[in-house]
Protein backbone atom coordinates (compact mmCIF):
# COMPACT_ATOMS: atom_id res chain seq x y z
CA UNK A 1 0.00 0.00 0.00
CA UNK A 2 1.31 3.38 -1.00
CA UNK A 3 -0.35 6.78 -0.85
CA UNK A 4 0.82 9.16 -3.53
CA UNK A 5 -0.04 12.83 -3.23
CA UNK A 6 0.93 15.73 -5.44
CA UNK A 7 0.13 19.43 -5.38
CA UNK A 8 1.12 20.99 -8.67
CA UNK A 9 0.43 23.73 -11.18
CA UNK A 10 0.80 21.34 -14.15
CA UNK A 11 -2.06 19.41 -15.73
CA UNK A 12 -2.34 15.62 -15.33
CA UNK A 13 -3.34 12.68 -17.51
CA UNK A 14 -5.61 10.15 -15.86
CA UNK A 15 -4.59 7.24 -18.12
CA UNK A 16 -0.94 7.77 -17.32
CA UNK A 17 -1.62 8.03 -13.60
CA UNK A 18 -3.61 4.79 -13.63
CA UNK A 19 -0.91 3.05 -15.63
CA UNK A 20 1.73 4.17 -13.13
CA UNK A 21 -0.28 2.79 -10.20
CA UNK A 22 -1.01 -0.49 -11.97
CA UNK A 23 2.62 -0.97 -12.95
CA UNK A 24 3.36 -1.39 -9.25
CA UNK A 25 0.82 -4.12 -8.69
CA UNK A 26 -0.40 -6.84 -11.10
CA UNK A 27 -3.11 -7.90 -8.65
CA UNK A 28 -5.12 -4.72 -9.26
CA UNK A 29 -8.53 -5.68 -10.63
CA UNK A 30 -10.45 -2.49 -9.91
CA UNK A 31 -9.57 1.15 -10.43
CA UNK A 32 -12.02 3.80 -9.23
CA UNK A 33 -11.23 7.37 -10.08
CA UNK A 34 -12.68 10.82 -9.82
CA UNK A 35 -11.73 13.93 -11.73
CA UNK A 36 -13.07 17.37 -10.89
CA UNK A 37 -12.80 20.20 -13.40
CA UNK A 38 -13.61 23.87 -13.80
CA UNK A 39 -17.12 24.39 -15.16
CA UNK A 40 -17.65 27.37 -17.43
CA UNK A 41 -20.60 28.40 -15.24
CA UNK A 42 -20.94 28.50 -11.44
CA UNK A 43 -23.86 29.93 -9.48
CA UNK A 44 -25.21 31.29 -12.76
CA UNK A 45 -22.16 33.37 -13.64
CA UNK A 46 -19.70 32.71 -16.40
CA UNK A 47 -16.30 31.91 -14.89
CA UNK A 48 -13.37 33.38 -16.83
CA UNK A 49 -10.50 32.46 -14.54
CA UNK A 50 -10.04 30.52 -11.33
CA UNK A 51 -7.25 30.81 -8.80
CA UNK A 52 -6.50 27.90 -6.49
CA UNK A 53 -4.70 28.80 -3.26
CA UNK A 54 -3.49 26.29 -0.69
CA UNK A 55 -1.57 26.14 2.58
CA UNK A 56 1.75 24.46 1.80
CA UNK A 57 2.78 22.02 4.49
CA UNK A 58 -0.68 21.53 5.91
CA UNK A 59 -2.03 20.52 2.50
CA UNK A 60 0.37 17.62 2.13
CA UNK A 61 -0.24 16.59 5.72
CA UNK A 62 -4.01 16.53 5.24
CA UNK A 63 -3.85 14.64 1.95
CA UNK A 64 -1.61 12.03 3.56
CA UNK A 65 -3.98 11.74 6.50
CA UNK A 66 -7.00 11.33 4.22
CA UNK A 67 -5.19 8.66 2.19
CA UNK A 68 -4.11 6.77 5.30
CA UNK A 69 -7.65 6.95 6.65
CA UNK A 70 -9.00 5.41 3.44
CA UNK A 71 -6.39 2.66 3.56
CA UNK A 72 -7.33 1.81 7.13
CA UNK A 73 -11.03 1.51 6.27
CA UNK A 74 -11.00 -0.46 3.02
CA UNK A 75 -9.00 -3.18 1.32
CA UNK A 76 -7.19 -1.09 -1.21
CA UNK A 77 -3.75 -1.26 -2.73
CA UNK A 78 -2.67 2.25 -3.65
CA UNK A 79 -4.16 5.71 -3.73
CA UNK A 80 -3.29 8.83 -5.64
CA UNK A 81 -4.41 12.39 -5.04
CA UNK A 82 -3.32 15.10 -7.48
CA UNK A 83 -4.56 18.63 -6.84
CA UNK A 84 -3.67 21.59 -9.01
CA UNK A 85 -3.03 25.09 -7.66
CA UNK A 86 -2.54 28.49 -9.23
CA UNK A 87 -4.44 29.89 -12.19
CA UNK A 88 -6.94 27.60 -13.90
CA UNK A 89 -9.36 28.25 -16.72
CA UNK A 90 -12.79 26.88 -17.63
CA UNK A 91 -12.62 23.19 -18.56
CA UNK A 92 -9.24 22.76 -16.85
CA UNK A 93 -8.81 19.69 -14.69
CA UNK A 94 -8.52 20.51 -10.97
CA UNK A 95 -8.32 17.33 -8.96
CA UNK A 96 -7.78 13.62 -9.50
CA UNK A 97 -8.34 10.89 -6.93
CA UNK A 98 -7.68 7.22 -7.68
CA UNK A 99 -8.00 4.09 -5.56
CA UNK A 100 -6.89 0.66 -6.74
CA UNK A 101 -8.08 -2.60 -5.24
CA UNK A 102 -8.72 -6.25 -5.98
CA UNK A 103 -12.47 -5.57 -5.94
CA UNK A 104 -14.61 -2.65 -7.00
CA UNK A 105 -16.57 -2.03 -3.81
CA UNK A 106 -13.47 -1.08 -1.87
CA UNK A 107 -12.08 1.01 -4.71
CA UNK A 108 -15.32 3.00 -5.11
CA UNK A 109 -15.78 3.60 -1.40
CA UNK A 110 -12.17 4.66 -0.80
CA UNK A 111 -12.22 7.01 -3.79
CA UNK A 112 -15.47 8.70 -2.78
CA UNK A 113 -14.37 8.91 0.85
CA UNK A 114 -11.12 10.64 -0.15
CA UNK A 115 -12.98 13.15 -2.29
CA UNK A 116 -15.53 13.94 0.42
CA UNK A 117 -12.80 14.52 2.99
CA UNK A 118 -10.59 16.43 0.60
CA UNK A 119 -13.53 18.77 -0.08
CA UNK A 120 -14.00 19.54 3.60
CA UNK A 121 -10.58 19.07 5.22
CA UNK A 122 -7.80 19.85 2.76
CA UNK A 123 -6.72 23.51 2.82
CA UNK A 124 -7.50 24.61 -0.73
CA UNK A 125 -9.50 27.70 -1.63
CA UNK A 126 -10.98 28.73 -4.96
CA UNK A 127 -11.28 32.32 -6.15
CA UNK A 128 -13.31 32.86 -9.30
CA UNK A 129 -13.09 35.76 -11.72
CA UNK A 130 -16.37 36.49 -13.45
CA UNK A 131 -17.57 39.49 -15.46
CA UNK A 132 -18.51 41.09 -12.10
CA UNK A 133 -15.04 40.81 -10.59
CA UNK A 134 -13.44 38.33 -8.24
CA UNK A 135 -15.03 36.31 -5.48
CA UNK A 136 -13.95 33.55 -3.15
CA UNK A 137 -16.08 30.46 -3.57
CA UNK A 138 -18.27 29.75 -0.54
CA UNK A 139 -18.14 26.36 1.12
CA UNK A 140 -21.18 24.19 0.45
CA UNK A 141 -23.14 22.73 3.34
CA UNK A 142 -23.72 19.60 1.24
CA UNK A 143 -19.98 18.93 1.30
CA UNK A 144 -20.01 18.78 5.10
CA UNK A 145 -22.97 16.42 4.94
CA UNK A 146 -21.19 14.25 2.39
CA UNK A 147 -18.11 13.98 4.60
CA UNK A 148 -20.07 13.33 7.79
CA UNK A 149 -21.95 10.36 6.38
CA UNK A 150 -18.72 8.33 6.44
CA UNK A 151 -18.77 8.59 10.21
CA UNK A 152 -21.83 6.33 10.44
CA UNK A 153 -21.39 2.58 10.63
CA UNK A 154 -23.79 2.12 7.72
CA UNK A 155 -21.16 3.12 5.20
CA UNK A 156 -18.77 0.43 6.30
CA UNK A 157 -21.39 -2.23 5.72
CA UNK A 158 -22.20 -0.82 2.34
CA UNK A 159 -18.60 -0.79 1.17
CA UNK A 160 -18.10 -4.42 2.05
CA UNK A 161 -20.85 -5.56 -0.30
CA UNK A 162 -18.80 -4.81 -3.42
Amino acid at each position, binding site marked *: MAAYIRVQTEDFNISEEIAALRARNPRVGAVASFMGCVRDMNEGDSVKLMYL*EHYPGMTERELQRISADAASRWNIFDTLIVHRVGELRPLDQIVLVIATSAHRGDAFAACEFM*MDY*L*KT*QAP*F*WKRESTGDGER*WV*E*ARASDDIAAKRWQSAEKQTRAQAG
Partner: protein
Amino acid sequence: MAEAHTSIQLVFLARLRERFGVARETLSLDSSEISVASLLARLRSRDPVFADELAEGRAYRVAVNHTVVGGEHSVRAGDEVAIFPPVTGG
Protein backbone atom coordinates in the same frame (compact mmCIF):
# COMPACT_ATOMS: atom_id res chain seq x y z
CA MET B 1 15.97 35.25 15.98
CA ALA B 2 15.84 35.19 19.77
CA GLU B 3 12.32 36.50 19.30
CA ALA B 4 11.25 33.12 17.91
CA HIS B 5 11.36 31.73 21.44
CA THR B 6 8.69 34.11 22.70
CA SER B 7 6.63 34.58 19.58
CA ILE B 8 4.39 32.70 17.17
CA GLN B 9 3.92 32.77 13.42
CA LEU B 10 0.47 33.89 12.26
CA VAL B 11 -0.67 32.78 8.81
CA PHE B 12 -3.79 34.13 7.09
CA LEU B 13 -5.11 32.42 4.00
CA ALA B 14 -7.44 33.02 1.06
CA ARG B 15 -10.20 35.56 1.74
CA LEU B 16 -8.86 36.34 5.23
CA ARG B 17 -5.40 37.04 3.82
CA GLU B 18 -6.95 39.51 1.40
CA ARG B 19 -9.21 41.11 4.01
CA PHE B 20 -6.42 41.54 6.56
CA GLY B 21 -3.89 42.56 3.92
CA VAL B 22 -1.27 40.26 5.40
CA ALA B 23 -0.25 36.69 4.65
CA ARG B 24 2.17 36.02 7.49
CA GLU B 25 3.35 37.85 10.56
CA THR B 26 5.30 37.23 13.73
CA LEU B 27 3.38 37.92 16.92
CA SER B 28 5.04 38.30 20.30
CA LEU B 29 3.39 36.51 23.19
CA ASP B 30 3.00 38.05 26.64
CA SER B 31 3.32 34.65 28.24
CA SER B 32 4.73 31.25 27.29
CA GLU B 33 1.33 30.08 26.11
CA ILE B 34 -2.08 31.42 25.19
CA SER B 35 -5.34 29.71 24.34
CA VAL B 36 -6.63 29.95 20.79
CA ALA B 37 -9.71 31.72 22.14
CA SER B 38 -7.55 34.37 23.84
CA LEU B 39 -5.43 34.79 20.75
CA LEU B 40 -8.55 35.38 18.65
CA ALA B 41 -9.82 37.94 21.17
CA ARG B 42 -6.50 39.74 20.94
CA LEU B 43 -6.70 39.79 17.14
CA ARG B 44 -10.32 41.02 17.18
CA SER B 45 -9.23 44.01 19.25
CA ARG B 46 -6.89 45.15 16.48
CA ASP B 47 -9.41 46.85 14.21
CA PRO B 48 -12.97 46.52 12.86
CA VAL B 49 -11.92 44.21 9.99
CA PHE B 50 -10.34 41.69 12.35
CA ALA B 51 -13.26 42.13 14.75
CA ASP B 52 -15.75 41.41 11.99
CA GLU B 53 -14.03 38.52 10.27
CA LEU B 54 -13.04 36.73 13.47
CA ALA B 55 -16.30 37.40 15.32
CA GLU B 56 -17.71 34.40 17.16
CA GLY B 57 -20.13 32.56 14.94
CA ARG B 58 -18.24 33.40 11.75
CA ALA B 59 -17.11 30.38 9.77
CA TYR B 60 -13.33 30.13 9.98
CA ARG B 61 -10.86 27.54 11.13
CA VAL B 62 -7.69 27.72 13.22
CA ALA B 63 -4.84 25.28 12.63
CA VAL B 64 -1.85 25.07 14.95
CA ASN B 65 1.20 23.49 13.35
CA HIS B 66 -0.98 22.25 10.47
CA THR B 67 -3.65 20.62 12.62
CA VAL B 68 -7.12 22.15 13.07
CA VAL B 69 -7.79 22.87 16.76
CA GLY B 70 -10.54 24.27 18.96
CA GLY B 71 -10.63 27.42 21.10
CA GLU B 72 -9.31 25.67 24.20
CA HIS B 73 -6.07 24.59 22.50
CA SER B 74 -2.93 26.12 23.98
CA VAL B 75 -0.68 27.97 21.55
CA ARG B 76 2.98 27.96 22.56
CA ALA B 77 5.95 30.06 21.50
CA GLY B 78 7.30 28.82 18.20
CA ASP B 79 3.94 27.53 16.96
CA GLU B 80 2.56 28.35 13.53
CA VAL B 81 -1.07 29.43 13.83
CA ALA B 82 -3.08 29.59 10.61
CA ILE B 83 -6.52 31.16 10.35
CA PHE B 84 -8.57 30.46 7.23
CA PRO B 85 -12.10 30.26 5.79
CA PRO B 86 -13.86 26.92 5.21
CA VAL B 87 -12.00 25.08 2.48
CA THR B 88 -13.34 24.96 -1.07
CA GLY B 89 -10.93 22.81 -3.05
CA GLY B 90 -11.53 19.66 -5.03
